[in-house]
């Protein structure tokens, strides 16, 4: 089998995921797109591992690790999204604009409430995504 097939498929999947991350408004859909990107990487790892016939099968081992890390990531990410939704009443990414320059002044009103300890978290999550 040509290596080009899985490689191109992986590249395209990755870019589809990229588009989703950048274009989707709902945070959970963003997480789905992230899963697509991770899977594109996994496909690459497996394909190259098979092609190179690595004695240690580093590609497959790494794929397993990636899957595990992705599972952990989706768990934490969803927890964060839920918390944001609970505090803000929305899970839309483009409504979470606490870091905006102009809006920085009138934010303390809701930062005083129960969101206070958690407010940095969603931004960190989105940045990580």
């Amino acid at each position, binding site marked *: 089998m040509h290596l080009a097939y899985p490689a191109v498929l992986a590249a395209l999947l990755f870019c589809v995921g990229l588009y989703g991350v*950048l274009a989707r408004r709902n945070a959970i859909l963003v997480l789905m797109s992230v899963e697509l990107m991770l899977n594109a990487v996994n496909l690459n790892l497996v394909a190259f591992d098979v092609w190179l016939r690595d004695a240690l099968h580093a590609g497959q081992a790494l794929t397993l690790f990636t899957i595990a890390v992705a599972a952990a990531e989706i768990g934490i990410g969803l927890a964060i999204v839920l918390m944001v939704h609970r505090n803000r009443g929305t899970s839309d990414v483009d409504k*979470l*604009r606490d*870091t*905006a*320059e102009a809006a920085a002044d009138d934010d303390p009103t809701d930062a005083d409430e129960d969101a206070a300890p958690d407010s940095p978290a969603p931004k960190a999550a989105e*940045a990580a995504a």
Partner: protein
Amino acid sequence: MTTTTLAVLVPLLPFLGAVAGLLLGRTAPGFVRPLAILPTVAALALAITVAVHQGGGKSIDAATRLTPTGSVPIDLALHIDGFAALVAVLVTVVATCVQVYSTAYLRDDPRYASYAALVSLFTSAMLVVVYSGDLMVLLVGWEIMGICSYFLVGHYWETPEARAASLKAFLVTKLGDVPFLFGLFALAADAGTFRITGILEAVATGGLDHPTLIALLLVAGVAGKSAQFPLHTWLPDAMAGPTPVSALIHAATMVAAGVYFVARLLPVFAASAAAMTVLAVMAAVTMVGSALAALAQDDIKRVLAYSTIGQLGYMTGALAVGDRGAAVFHLLSHGAFKALLFLGAGVIIHAAGTNSLAAMSRMGDLPKRIPDAYWTMTIALLALAAIPPFAGFFSKEAVLVAAEHTALGDSATSPSGAGWIVLIAGLLTALLTAAYATRLWLLAFRGRGPAAPDHGKQPLAMSAVLWVLAVPSLALGLAVGQLAGWFDVTSLTPSVTTAVLGTGVALVGGIMTYASWRALRYKAGTNIPLGAVAAHPDADPATSEEEAIATHQAAYGDIASAPDPGDPGRLLLGPLHRHAATGFHLDALYAALFVRPVKGAAELVRFLDREVVDTYVRAAGTLPRWLGIAVRRAQTGNVQTYLAALLAGSVVLAIAAVLVAAVGA
């Protein structure tokens, strides 16, 4: 103690007194008066001792070098000859008188402590100038006097006149000091030393390469300090200071320093005929112009100030004809009678409550209120007018004799032209001097009108000092035979020709003034009421004077003159009066020539700074702010936009890297 030690103590004691006065002035006011007077009195005693030890014989020289200071060494040196010894005595006598007088004159002044300390410092600086055998050390005293005069002239700094006058005195003298400093360096570079003895040796052996340049540079500094044309304009304005300060500056210290300096280094000046001629012309212009101006002044102190300028012109004239004995002799006698005149004027101003001669001429009984001042002022004015046998007659005759000798070609040091200039100007000035002295006396003491207010007897400290100073004014001339031995001249005695001529013109001047005064006195409409008197006649004299100075312009329309139709000076000068009253518009000329261009340049610089330079500065602040505002718009808070920008950048970079690799391969 050796004479050298005594001589070192002479300037040191007033200096220590000044330091102690400044330190203790606030905490222990009781010590201020002793600290002001005792060091000065001690310095007087020591100066007399030094003079007696020196005795007009060989000069005393002592030097110590603290540390090597480069190519031309600077020594702490003493050079005491007959001139130095006698001038030091004069300085300490006048300083003592001034200090004693000030205790009464400024008895209620809140700043008396610092005033007295500054007078002590002033005295100390002058003594340094007098005794110093090293030009750099001399310069230290010279500059300390400059700054002290600034502070003392500005003593009444609440009045704008005093502030302006102190600034003017400082700036104008400083204007002369800059070329003076260059002259000193040029002189030291040529002679290889700052020591006066070394310089005189170098001159004697013809070691000076640029005598004219050096002499002219030094003359500029001397003109500034000794108030010679064209740098004399600070002196009349310096009358805004307290009267004792005027006495100190005019009689003994500051203005005398310039003349004394030239006298010390006369061989340097004599090495250049051009410098001697410049000195002569400067002296002639100064004395005639200032005498005319003195005749038109209304402020009694300004009359005396212009008279000082004129008498200093005599001294400069004597130096220009190469006779430093005559110059220093006139310096001594002038110091005595001018100190007396100023201190007497202080008493008059206090008694009359005004400094205006026009107001005094409308005031009766002034001599009865202040008999001490009346008699001593009369003596001093006679001395000023050079009437025999007063001190001024002998010293002025010495100058005229020297000028006559030079004019007739008997002098080896200066051109005969200089002699003629000085002689003619001197005789003309003698006439004018007698005229303005008579005018001053008539207007101040022969006034008619309501009796002067009675403030009781003047303080003893003030009256006694007047009599002390009257003695040398009266009798210094009689010592002319002894004095010649102190100076390196053969004789100071007057010759018949000049004595007759000088006394004659002086009498003519006096009689003309008297005649015009008489004529005006009985003319209708000349005795119109005029003038203002101090608001607090019973306060201490300094307060009266301060108020008189502050109100003169408001009451008479001008700081210098008054619209008095009964003024004999107005009749004598005729159309010239208007110009003479303003000092021949020299201040206006300087304002047009220097002050206005400088102010214009300052405006320009201000404009350049505010509008041009600041524009760049503001732009340096504004541009980043605009940039910041622009960049801030990108901070939407939308994480997706950030990420999109980040990834777009990564893609661009990756493509660029691939392309570069492809091209490279």
